[in-house]
């Protein structure tokens, strides 16, 4: 069931559901790709989210009605996924100095810290969307045993690179920001750099898995990344 909703006279929301669900998100990514492959007149940019595509448009070049008609014709077309998604291998150090909430998470889940690390790094996650702050990837779904509500006392400063979990999701803080998620590790790689085009490493629809590294390897990668000689590992995914 697809719903069209106005977000003022410059935004059109095309909604596929109201849940965090890979099937819904897949429909979002398909429509997003179809619009990007052949943008209808007046489209400025699109923002794919968990459950909807927000189409930003110029009301002087099109109307919500005419845009809705063009977009309706694109729904369900799978042929447009020409832009390849990537599967990233992200190094994460889960050692205590980088993982202030790991013990707490383990305790609250009835697991050992090693179990938490094994579960968190044991599967590939979908990048459902990017939002909150520049480059912040909402990724899921976590092993059900790791599902916890957000922290009751959000931190005012979460460091760059912190790897976090909350609800059924995991994320990496790409810039220093406030944050209410549980910090269970850190990555030395840069997720956001305004000097790059695009400025974010991940794109919505990519896959991410985490590879545990010790703190020595973490430091080495961080130094290489700072010098611009570290290239994160990825494989292209056939859609």
């Amino acid at each position, binding site marked *: 069931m697809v719903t069209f*909703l*106005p*977000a*003022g*006279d*410059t*935004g059109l*929301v095309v*909604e596929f559901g*109201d*849940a*965090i669900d890979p099937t819904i998100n897949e429909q979002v990514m398909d429509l*997003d790709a179809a619009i990007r492959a052949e943008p209808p007149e007046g489209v*400025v*940019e*699109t*923002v*794919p*989210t*968990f*459950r*909807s*595509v*927000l189409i*930003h448009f110029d*009301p*002087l070049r099109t*109307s*919500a*009605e005419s845009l809705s008609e063009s977009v309706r014709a694109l729904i369900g077309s799978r042929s447009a996924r020409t832009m390849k998604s990537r599967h990233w291998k992200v190094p994460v150090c889960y050692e205590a100095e980088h993982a202030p909430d790991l013990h707490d998470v383990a305790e609250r889940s009835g697991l050992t810290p090693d179990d938490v690390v094994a579960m968190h790094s044991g599967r590939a996650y979908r990048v459902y*969307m*990017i*939002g*909150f*702050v*520049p*480059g*912040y990837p*909402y990724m899921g779904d976590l092993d059900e045993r790791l599902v916890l509500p957000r922290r009751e006392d959000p931190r005012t400063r979460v460091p760059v690179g912190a790897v976090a979990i909350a609800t059924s999701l995991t994320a990496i803080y790409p*810039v220093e920001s406030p944050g209410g998620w549980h910090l269970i590790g850190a990555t030395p790689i840069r997720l*956001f750099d*305004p*000097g790059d*085009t*695009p*400025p*974010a490493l991940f*794109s*919505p629809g990519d896959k991410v898995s985490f590879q545990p590294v010790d703190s020595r390897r973490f430091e080495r990668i961080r130094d290489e990344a700072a010098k611009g000689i570290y290239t994160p590992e990825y494989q292209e995914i056939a859609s």
Partner: protein
Amino acid sequence: MTSLLRVATGGTQTTLQDLGRFGYQRFGLPVAGALDPFSLRLANALVGNDPAAAAIEILGHGPTFEVDAESVRVAFTGSHAGFEVNGEEATIVPSYRSHTVYRGERLAVRAMPDSQVGYLAVEGGFEIEPVLGSLSTYTRAGIGGFGGRALRGGDALPLTLPRASERTERRLAAPPSIGHECAIRLILGPQHEAFTREAVETLLTSTFTVSRDVDRMGMRLDGPTLEHSGGFNLVSDGIATGCIQVPGSGQPIVLLADHQTTGGYPKIGSVISADIPLLGRRRPGDNIRFKEVSVPQAEAARRSAERDILQAIKSIADAPPLRGIDLDCLYNRNLISGVIDAWD
């Protein structure tokens, strides 16, 4: 020798802004750009720039500059406050006209009693590299503009032109209205169904006040609270400029140029694009009333607003010289009477 506009004092929040940075919201990067794009375009047009060029956006208390160039042509818009030039003698330059300032002169934007935001455009613009296609400053991530931040004393903005071009100064035929008395038009949704019927009724019939909690990201409104019919946490979706989100407190927040790209609070309505400039000008303590319109009405309003600005730009004509007119008197009379129709 490099031409510079030196910043003597930065003011409350003075940033470079153009019409925004588009194409990167999918990566979580806000558009930023002028809070009052209407006034930005007029300021640029007055100095002969592309209306979409970057200019200096002034929020709250104004900055002061010193000219370290042979000369530079500037124009100020958005507020009717104008600016002062202190050289060999002091001059008050009204808003909505161009003026050339010379080496060693000091330019001070006057207090803006009638608007939260003003624009100072510089002929030829700034010799600064755009970031991701735009000069707009997004301070939260330190991106764009001058070093990704607001201007402060000691900064020096590099100018593209060594001196002002040879031509007569120009002005707008009639300064536009600030529009404080206008109701702000909105389209309900995308999530007005997450609210009680009373909440929607309250939004459309009450008078709200702009709270002190206002910045380039959004404007929290004081007034009656708006009750959700169910929970107030949705699965996050996209946000457009002008969306009115309502967190658990029930206090609406109107999202402005620096808004986050996505969010999980229900959005009861969205201010139409024609009225975004009016929103940007409202100051803490100002009243806000909302009026519902349909999508086709909003689209017609935007076309009409666009005709207005193109007409205003077309009305720009040669200005009589400043000397000989008692500008301070004219300026004060106009502000006190609150009726500003024309210069003469």
